[in-house]
C-alpha cells in the first residue's frame, strides 16, 4: 500500500510539462507504480486539456486553407519505434524490476559506484547532468544526516527505508524542500530508490560534514 504520493500541484505541473525532465522521470515512474496517481493524472489531463483548448483565436481563412493543404499533402513521418525498454537492473547479485518510465530511459543509466555507508549509486544521464540517481542501500545501511540547498524527491522502487519522519516502502514518493534535514537508513531489508536532487547534499552532523566538499561527487 503506497502511503506517500506527489502533491496534486506537482501532478498538474507534470501533466502540463512544466517540470524539468529529470523530475518528470521520477514522477512518471511513481505513476507507473501507483494506480491511484495514474487515475488522478488521467482526470487532470482531461481538465487541463479542456482548459488549454477551450477557446480559439481568430484564424484567417487563407491560413486555414494553406495549412490544411500542406498537412494533407505531407508525407507520413516514419513510425516512432523505440528501443526495447530496460526491464531490470542487477546489483550485488540481485535483480530488480524496472518500471516502464525508467525503463524507457534505461540506456542512460550509468555504471554503479560505491558511496560510504554500504550505499551504491548509478546516475541517470539526463541533459548531461547527473541529478537523478538510482541509489541502493544494503540492509543496515545509512546515509549520514543531511540537508539540501535545493529540493529532493525520492521514490522507493523496491524494499524499504526509514528516516526521522516515517517508514517508506515500494512506490512511496517523498518530496523534501530545502529546509528539511534527514538521515535515511535501512534495517533488515535493503532498498533501491530513484532519487532526484536539484542541488548537492549538505551533510549536517559530526564527521560526515567532512564529506561536504565532495558531496557533489557522489550525490549529484
Amino acid at each position, binding site marked *: *500500500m503506497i502511503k506517500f504520493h506527489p502533491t496534486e500541484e506537482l501532478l498538474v505541473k507534470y*501533466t*502540463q*510539462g512544466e517540470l524539468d*525532465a529529470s523530475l*518528470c*522521470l521520477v514522477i*512518471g515512474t511513481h505513476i507507473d507504480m501507483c494506480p491511484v496517481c495514474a487515475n488522478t493524472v*488521467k482526470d487532470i*489531463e*482531461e481538465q*487541463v*486539456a*479542456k482548459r*488549454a*483548448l*477551450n*477557446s*480559439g*483565436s*481568430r*484564424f484567417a*481563412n*487563407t*491560413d*486555414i*486553407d494553406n*495549412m*490544411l*493543404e*500542406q*498537412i*494533407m499533402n*505531407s508525407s*507520413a*513521418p516514419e*513510425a*516512432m*519505434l*523505440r528501443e*526495447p*525498454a530496460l*526491464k531490470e537492473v542487477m546489483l550485488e*547479485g*540481485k*535483480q530488480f524490476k524496472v518500471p*516502464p*518510465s525508467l525503463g*524507457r*530511459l534505461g540506456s*542512460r543509466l550509468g555504471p554503479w559506484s560505491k558511496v560510504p555507508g554500504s550505499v551504491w549509486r548509478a546516475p541517470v*544521464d*539526463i*541533459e*548531461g547532468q547527473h541529478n537523478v540517481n538510482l541509489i541502493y542501500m544494503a540492509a543496515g545501511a545509512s546515509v549520514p544526516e543531511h540537508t539540501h540547498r535545493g529540493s529532493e524527491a525520492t521514490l522507493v522502487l523496491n*524494499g*524499504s527505508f526509514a528516516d526521522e519522519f516515517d517508514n517508506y*516502502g515500494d512506490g512511496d514518493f517523498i518530496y523534501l524542500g530545502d529546509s528539511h534535514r534527514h538521515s535515511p537508513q535501512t534495517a*533488515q*531489508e535493503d532498498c533501491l530508490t530513484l532519487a532526484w536532487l536539484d542541488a548537492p547534499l549538505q551533510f549536517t552532523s559530526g564527521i560526515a560534514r567532512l564529506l561536504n566538499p565532495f558531496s557533489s561527487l557522489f550525490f549529484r
Partner: protein
Amino acid sequence: MHVMPKNRVTREYMNTSPSKTQEVTTEYLGKLLADVANTRSRRAFSELFKHFAPRLQAFATRQFGNEQTAMDLVQDTMTNVWHKAHLFSPEKGSPTTWIFTIARNIRFDILRKNKHRQNDVSAEDLWPVLSEEMSDSSEEDFALDQNILMQEIGEYYRQLPDAQRIVIEQIYVQGKSQQEVSDELDIPLGTVKSRTRLALQKLKELITAHD
C-alpha cells in the same frame, strides 16, 4: 472580404461542419478521428482542423508569446493528428485530451530545443503518446517465455526447500504480489523477498549446472 477562386472547394466542405451554435461533442470528434484513421477522410480532417487549430493557436500563443512558434506548434500538432489518428483510442481519453497531449509534448521539445542541448530526452520518452506501441506484444513474449521456462525448470523447482518453493509457487505460478504472499502466509515481506531471491539464485545455479 473576397473569396479567392482557389479556395472554393475548401469552403464547400467546410460548410458541412456543424454550425457554431451546435455543441461539438466528444463522440462527434471521436468519429471524425476514426474517419481520418480508417478512410483518410479529408473532409473529417478539415472539420477537426477547423475545431482544433484556432484553439491550439490560442494555447500556443499564450505559451510562447511568439506567433511564428505558435503556428509551428499548430502545424506540427495537426500533422500528427492527420498521420497518426489510428493511435487515438477513446478508452484512454477524449479527442481533446489526446490532441492536447500531442501539443504538450511538442511544446516541451520546442522549449528544450531552444536551449541547444545535445543528447536530450524527448517528451515522447517521458510521455509516450505517438510511439507505435510494441509493449503489449513484448509483454506477451515475456509471459510466454516465462511459461516455457516454468516447464523447463519444473524439475529443478521441486528440489527447492519447501519454504522457498511455496513462495515461488504463489508469486510465479499464481501471480500473487509479494505483499499478498506475505499477508497470506503471515510472514514478513522482507522474508518473502529474501526467500524469492534465494530461490531464484538456487534455480539459476541448478539450471546453469545442468546446461
